[in-house]
């Protein structure tokens, strides 16, 4: 048993050694270390402040901050372990998180007895299926199986169960839960599948990007974390104009914009110091900006759902659970957008925006010539 584990570990080490061996691969490890160390430092700072009774910081804020940092550190450590083991372990980890988040989501939204079988298929059918499709890298299916097939299956199955009370509401709840907790989150695992190209400014052409996509995934998760923490700090330090007090009393416009700008800067710095993504430095800044805005949108949306359901933190509905949904709401909203933007701009085959421009120009030219021929 131990022998087998050792052999696997050695094999993994060799594998990582070869894939991380030369050049940019080691940047991923660098980023991982930087993130872990800075989270550790934040945790230590938070704990020290907690023990100092004379500090002027509100203990409630400090507790909230410490809780966030601890959960982020847990997520990072789990992710790093999964990344070190195997690609499929990472995808399975995301699948498990999705399952748990969906479980929390359905727990806090009232469903009726007639939904029981539908929920069973959603949790044990579509959720694993989505991650299997990500695992086997079937892009065509994994992008449509939930928004199309599951969206049709859910209302039909509820209708067959014969309970028509609040039909649309119940259908929408299950569809939304599946879309956010499973479909959206699976896009972050799908980042590992991307085959990317990098713009070589010296040569003036696109070339295949040699680095591993683990770095891309970790860049994404790290940026969401940074955005979350910055949003929190900006709200507390400079927040004046609350966006929607009825939805969330702490989220401010200053926080949203400040966090977006600062996150963008952090994205640029990461890309310049540790080039783990195929983006240019300004491209990384742009991506970080979008990630930050989407992450804030995710937290706002979840706040609205919580307010509507009358739960302050999803997790406290059932005490003792950490509230997985609370921690991943920002990742869920940012993941599909980041995935598609990355794919659009740096995919190995599409080579980004210039193809679209070329095609549009060609289409317009054809249209013009047809028009002139008709005239």
């Amino acid at each position, binding site marked *: 048993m131990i022998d087998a584990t050792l052999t696997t570990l050695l094999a993994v080490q060799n594998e990582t050694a070869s894939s991380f061996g030369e050049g940019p691969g080691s940047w991923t490890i660098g980023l991982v270390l930087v993130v872990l160390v800075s989270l550790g430092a934040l945790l230590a700072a938070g704990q020290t402040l907690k023990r100092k009774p004379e500090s002027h910081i509100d203990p409630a804020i400090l507790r909230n901050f410490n809780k966030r940092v601890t959960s982020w550190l847990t997520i990072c450590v789990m992710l790093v372990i999964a990344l070190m083991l195997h690609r499929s372990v990472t995808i399975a980890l995301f699948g498990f998180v999705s399952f748990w988040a969906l479980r929390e989501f359905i*727990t806090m939204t009232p469903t009726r007895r007639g939904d*029981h079988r539908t929920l*069973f298929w959603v949790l044990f059918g579509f959720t694993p299926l989505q991650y299997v499709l990500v695992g086997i890298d079937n892009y065509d299916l994994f992008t449509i199986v939930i928004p199309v097939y599951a969206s049709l299956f859910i209302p039909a199955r509820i209708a067959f169960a014969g309970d028509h009370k609040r039909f649309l509401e119940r259908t929408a709840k299950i569809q939304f839960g599946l879309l956010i907790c499973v479909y959206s989150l699976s896009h972050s695992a799908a980042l590992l599948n991307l085959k990317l190209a990098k713009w070589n400014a010296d040569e003036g052409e696109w070339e295949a990007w040699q680095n591993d996509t683990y770095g891309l995934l970790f860049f994404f998760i790290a940026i969401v974390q940074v955005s979350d923490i910055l949003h929190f700090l900006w709200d507390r330090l400079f927040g004046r104009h609350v966006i929607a007090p009825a939805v969330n009393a702490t989220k401010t416009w200053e926080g949203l914009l400040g966090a977006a700008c600062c996150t963008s800067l952090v994205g640029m710095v990461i890309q310049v110091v540790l080039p783990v993504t195929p983006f240019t430095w300004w491209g990384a800044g742009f991506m970080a900006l979008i990630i930050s805005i989407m992450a804030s949108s995710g937290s706002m949306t979840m706040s609205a759902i919580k307010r509507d359901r009358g739960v302050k933190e999803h997790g406290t509905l059932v005490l003792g659970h950490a509230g997985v949904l609370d921690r991943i709401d920002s990742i869920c909203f940012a993941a599909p957008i980041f995935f598609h933007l990355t794919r659009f701009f740096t995919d190995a085959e599409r080579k980004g925006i210039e193809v679209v421009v070329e095609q549009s120009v060609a289409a317009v030219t054809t249209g013009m010539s047809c028009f002139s021929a008709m005239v």
Partner: protein
Amino acid sequence: MKQVTVPVLAALAKVLSGATVRWIGCEPETCQRIYFANHTSHLDALVLWASLPKNIRNLTRPVAAVDYWQSGPVRRYMATVFNVLLIDRKKIKVHNSPIDMMLREIGDVNSLIVFPEGSRNLSGKMGEFKSGLFHLAKKRPDLELMPVYIDNLNRVMPKGEFLPVPLLSCISIGAPIWLESGESKAEFLQRARKSVLKMKDS
């Protein structure tokens, strides 16, 4: 064999129901107790039993109907694993009172899990309590009667379903009650029912 299956099944029940256990105004103890709970799912007895700490679990026996737990080999095996105290609902007579049998079985060591509503209800509202709890309290005034509210388990496995949807459930155990001197049966049962309902919101 049982040393393995009991912890495995208990862990499975806990994972499946995602049960959080809250002891409100009381502590887990090994003294003789009657846990009385609302009944909404087949899993109730199993999950409540599984969520007790191990040393208490070993002393606690769920009371259940023989017609359900003796049908089929799986259920029969489960009944032995969970040490279920089986009551024949059809053969209840004056001379064959299940109360006497329960008291005989627990002696001065074991605790019991009972569902005073009698059977699972479909409406989601808690039914009226049957008088068994009152007789137990009258005959053994030293037993601690612990109100338990089981939340959300009816959504994990409602009546008539056989596939569970593993949502998160919550088990709230409240401070014990006893039969007051001079308290009538109806009054006591009403109070016991309210004590369970109170756990829902606390």
